[in-house]
């Protein structure tokens, strides 16, 4: 065989191999029909950590489910495909993202991550029969006549009062101060926190200090607050990127009181950014603290680390939305293309919570806050940071 023929034979062999490989891949894909679940949220820019932990949680769980044969809904077993859209924390792009989901025939979407984005996509979702699970707190999204949004976590106006009450009763907190980024989410969370603190009879010594969202040096921001010597400093709606710097600046300015927030945080970020100065920092977590994590949760964390190299503790609260969507569809397969069926099922839905030890249930709540069940039940796990990891301080529930 001369050189030219040899090359030709090799080319034919490689081409044939490629065609066969493509065919077998296609066969693998064709094994189960695909159920697309959407994500519209922020995965770039300063708030990328919020959406990235969301997407990665969904992708980890979807890969796990697909690996074990898919999800049986009614008589059909589906592979789960996560369709993602980065809205860059821009409401206009969030709308474009939700329109893309509608064009792809997707009826269930996780996100957006912030208030204005979640509010902006509401008309698109309602017109196109999409249920969406925002991580945003405006009550109008979840209160009738709105009915397509389901709050994907505990709202600050639910966790804040519980935390302040606990700290008042157990740590003797009397004076409280708030600091927030000058953005809609943190400011609304601060206002809710101030109202809750006043309702509990706490002395609010500062509630008007804010900072630019891109601030990197918080010493000048915190100096006027620290001089007021509050017992508790609340970092309202603080982004994980800012929390360690705020804590560090406060401690270096000599502040010795308590510091808390109502948002989820990441232990490694706190440890790297503030070290032992972050000890005692109180935040809201999810289900992965050793005291309450089930074997399924531990396996989820293991798989997440395997896929993405490093776990993000924010995923403790974000692991739930996809589980709720799939389990509700399992409970009523007619909902797969009809969100009105999904809404009917929400009222009575109940399933075991795979991520927590004990007999915790997945169920929809929100009657007290919204007058209808438009919130997923997530345990309100309040954590205290200690030497590089979170310890469960107390667990509460939202009804």
């Amino acid at each position, binding site marked *: 065989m001369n050189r030219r023929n040899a090359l030709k034979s090799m080319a034919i062999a490689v081409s044939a191999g490629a065609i066969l490989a493509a065919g077998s891949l296609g066969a693998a894909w064709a094994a189960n029909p695909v159920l697309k679940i959407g994500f519209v949220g922020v995965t770039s820019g*300063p708030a*990328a950590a919020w959406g990235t932990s969301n997407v990665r949680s969904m992708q980890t769980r979807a890969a796990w489910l697909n690996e074990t044969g898919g999800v049986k809904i009614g008589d059909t077993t589906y592979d789960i495909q996560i369709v993602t859209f980065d809205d860059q924390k821009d409401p206009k792009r969030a709308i474009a993202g939700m329109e893309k989901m509608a064009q792809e025939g997707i009826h269930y979407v996780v996100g957006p991550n912030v208030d204005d984005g979640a509010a902006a996509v509401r008309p698109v979702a309602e017109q196109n029969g999409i249920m969406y699970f925002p991580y945003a707190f405006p009550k109008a999204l979840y209160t009738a006549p709105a009915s397509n949004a389901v709050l994907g976590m505990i709202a600050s106006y639910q966790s804040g009062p519980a935390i302040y009450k606990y700290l008042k009763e157990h740590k003797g907190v009397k004076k409280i101060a708030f600091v927030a980024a000058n953005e809609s989410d943190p400011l609304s969370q601060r206002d809710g926190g101030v109202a809750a603190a006043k309702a509990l009879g706490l002395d609010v010594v500062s509630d*008007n200090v804010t900072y630019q969202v891109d601030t990197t040096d918080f010493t000048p921001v915190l100096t006027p607050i620290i001089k007021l010597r509050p017992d508790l400093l609340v970092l309202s709606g603080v982004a994980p990127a800012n929390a360690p710097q705020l804590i560090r600046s406060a401690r270096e300015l000599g502040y010795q009181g308590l510091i808390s927030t109502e948002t989820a945080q990441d232990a490694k970020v706190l440890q790297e950014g503030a070290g032992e100065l972050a000890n005692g920092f109180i935040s809201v977590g999810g289900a992965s603290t050793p005291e309450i994590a089930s074997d399924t949760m531990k396996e989820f964390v293991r798989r997440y680390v395997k896929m993405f190299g490093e776990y993000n503790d924010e995923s403790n609260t974000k692991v739930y939305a996809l589980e709720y969507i799939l389990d509700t569809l399992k409970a009523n397969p007619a909902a797969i293309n009809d969100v009105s069926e999904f809404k009917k099922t929400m009222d009575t839905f109940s399933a075991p919570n795979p991520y927590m030890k004990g007999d915790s249930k997945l169920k929809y709540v929100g009657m007290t806050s919204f007058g209808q069940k438009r919130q997923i039940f997530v345990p309100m796990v309040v954590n205290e940071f200690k030497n590089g990891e979170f310890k469960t301080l107390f667990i509460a529930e939202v009804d």
Partner: protein
Amino acid sequence: MEQILANGLYLGAQYALIALGLTLIFALMNVLNFAHGQMYVLGGFVTYTVYGQLGLPYVVALGASAVTLAVVGAVIEKFLFRTVLRRSVREESTMLLAAGVAFFLDAVILLLFGEKQRGVPKIVNGVLNLDFRLIMPYDRILVGVLAILSIAAFILFMQYSKTGRAMRALAQDRVAAQLQGVNVERYSMIGFALGAMLAGLVGGLLVTITGVNLGMGGPTSIKAFMMVMIGGAGVISGAIAGGFILGMMESIGLTVLSQYGDITYLVIFASLMVFLAIRPQGLMGKPWG
């Protein structure tokens, strides 16, 4: 008052160092480097990796940040800006290229270092506390001093070295410098590398205080542009003055105006608009460019 002045000086020193690199590149090449903030972030991540992850001495990490960014800057100048400057006379071409480089570096940083905020162990422990009148952690004092020393070293280099003199000649009159035998391409590349190196250096310094994350690049560039506009585009002493003025304004505003909400930057931007309407060339810039 002591606290306000100390905060202002500390902020001013780091801001001035950030602005220096930007203004140097502008002076030499007439390029608005929108990727300057991303270069700062990359410098921070290099120090995070070398000092925070690999456990090597901080000085080594700082050197690694400076060298890495110098190389990145030289490569970007040689293969991107030089090509575009040669082929296009439209100024917006380099601006678009700079914006593209910023997006590209953002994506690279996300892929290499992830989305999380990163931090490193403190380089010096302890806090200077003068009866709560002046509180300043020792690491901030050290970083502030290092920033001022870096600025001084940069000025001396520009003033007395052959390379510095060549770059100053280039900045003053590109054609005249060329006629005098200055190798324009070579010194443009050195200047761009030096500007990027300063961004990397300050990123490496500040990661010990503020940490670093992917989203810091854009806002850092905006602040750097503000300082350059205050001091006068392309003027080294102007960038230093702009940095210290912005730092002091921020420190005073955040203390005096805090009771009125977050209006410090509103006031700074409004003042800047009025100032530029009166003196568009900045404090030390020349009206003719």
